[in-house]
């Protein structure tokens, strides 16, 4: 049995990451929180617009954008990567609309076609050019991410103070920008998600909001890539918002709950990863899923337990004596 599940060493799993190993595990946990919170915030709006699958599509479609940006700029710098992702995200969005509107193919099938073909194109591009030209894009890293390497990245120094490893600082900026954008354009996001026809009749272009959201989603996804990869990022997009949906009926509260979910996923995930000696990103997603299941069962308003009790209370007591 001990071979399947590693021994549980309380000190190693719970104490060490916050004491002697804080320097590395602190950054990993913070990165996990930032990625989950940022993706979760954008994800809330995807869920409200019933576009969760589109998030899936964009996260895969970004791959060829990264490859092309890398080929053109010969660097893995932040700006070319963001631009590449942005363009790829928009292209994917346009492609989905185009297939859906200009053929008899329905939207779900159009999504399936657009993102798989773009992803395949990305795989080919990386296969062809990876390793050539000095710097390479690591397929493993793009698919699965490597959050454990975050503390090993060079530190960003500001005025002699260590701000943090480059990916963490970058993700921090994206997180702040996301919060700022949502705050600034809250009413446009709200009305175009709830009632697009009304939005247009008010002079707010629902189409523009759609593309802007997709574009920003691409930026968020690419900045999360490095740590969690193209596949697990989908979980970060959907789990926090889905969990929040079960617990509240107020969007601002849901955005707050998203942060809580992100923090819990990151902290529980890192401990789980230490215990099982597995990928922290994977463990964080598993932790996030467990939180979702807990909310599903225990939600005070409509959890499974609550429903069960209510059904019991309302059911006539037949044959009880």
């Amino acid at each position, binding site marked *: 049995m001990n071979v399947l599940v590693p021994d549980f060493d309380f000190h190693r799993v719970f104490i060490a990451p916050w004491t002697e190993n804080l320097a590395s595990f602190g950054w990993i946990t913070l990165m996990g929180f930032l990625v989950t919170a940022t993706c979760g915030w954008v994800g809330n709006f995807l869920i*409200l617009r019933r576009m969760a699958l589109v998030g899936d599509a964009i996260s895969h479609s970004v791959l060829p954008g990264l490859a092309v940006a890398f080929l053109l700029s010969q660097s893995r710098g932040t700006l070319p990567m963001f631009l590449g992702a942005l363009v790829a995200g928009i292209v994917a969005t346009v492609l989905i609309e185009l297939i859906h509107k200009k053929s008899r193919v329905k939207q779900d099938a159009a999504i399936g076609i657009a993102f798989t073909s773009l992803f395949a194109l990305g795989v080919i591009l990386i296969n062809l050019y990876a390793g050539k030209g000095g710097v390479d894009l690591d397929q493993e890293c793009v698919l699965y991410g490597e959050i454990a390497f975050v503390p090993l990245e060079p530190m960003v120094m500001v005025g002699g103070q260590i701000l943090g490893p480059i990916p963490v600082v970058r993700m921090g900026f994206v997180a702040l920008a996301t919060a700022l954008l949502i705050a*600034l*354009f*809250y*009413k*446009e996001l*709200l*009305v175009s*998600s*709830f*009632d697009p*026809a*009304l*939005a*247009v*009749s*008010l*002079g*707010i272009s629902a189409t523009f909001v759609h593309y802007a959201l997709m574009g920003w989603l691409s930026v968020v996804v690419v900045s999360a890539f490095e740590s969690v990869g193209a596949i697990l990022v989908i979980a970060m997009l959907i789990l926090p918002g889905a969990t929040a*949906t079960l617990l*509240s*009926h*107020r*969007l601002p509260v*849901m955005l707050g709950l998203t942060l809580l979910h992100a923090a819990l996923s990151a902290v529980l995930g890192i401990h789980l990863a230490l215990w099982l000696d597995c990928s922290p990103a994977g463990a964080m997603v598993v932790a996030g899923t467990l939180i979702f299941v807990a909310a599903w069962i225990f939600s005070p308003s409509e959890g499974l337990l609550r429903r069960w009790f209510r059904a019991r209370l309302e059911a006539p007591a037949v044959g009880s004596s």
Partner: protein
Amino acid sequence: MTDAPPLEIHDLTVAYHKKPVLWGIDLVVPRGKLVGIVGPNGAGKSTLIKAAMGLMPISSGWVKVFGEPVKKNLTRIGYVPQRESVDWDFPVSVMDVVLMGRYGHLGLLRRPSKQDRDIARESLDKVKMLPYANRQISNLSGGQQQRVFLARALAQESDLYFMDEPFAGVDAATEAAIVELLHELKARGKTLMIVHHDLPTARSYFDMLLLLNMRVVAFGPTNEVFTHDLLQSTYGGRLTILSEVAEAVREKG
């Protein structure tokens, strides 16, 4: 402001997947009228108001609102979409929905002010929904949902209203409340275009009727337009509806 009619439509044609849904619509709606838009299913009633507001592309013709292209006069237009067109599980309160009616008056980056909240509250009060202001919208009945939509339209403080079947699936009390509200708006000089499904009530609710079936069959004061012949040519050979029409006309006579 001007003497331009609230709504002027010339030679409007709208097509869905190359199939025309509306054909050569010509219409001048005078100010301060309560206009019912009636016609069979698929006659293009909803399409007409959506096209008039610029919500869907038009194939030919033009629409003017108070003498200007629609895009320039959006704040003078209020819209009540079909109730089923939105997700009532959406995580917002009644107040949030009504405040959306103010968004057209706010610029980019501006949040609703206290004044906007006051207007929203007054609008809710008019439809007797103020006690529900902080309710989550999924807890509302169909009639209450429709009242919230009407309150939102009131909060838009527009001069020309388009409403898509506001009477669909509401209780009798709400129906009466809506009728009262429409007359109050009319008395304040607003122009209202209402898509309506029920012929018998159409005659008593509206000043003017627009009989529509892909093209304008007739447009005029209700007592002139609500005739057997015109209704028959609007509804074509649909037997069940024709008998309903006959019934309605008999009641009138």
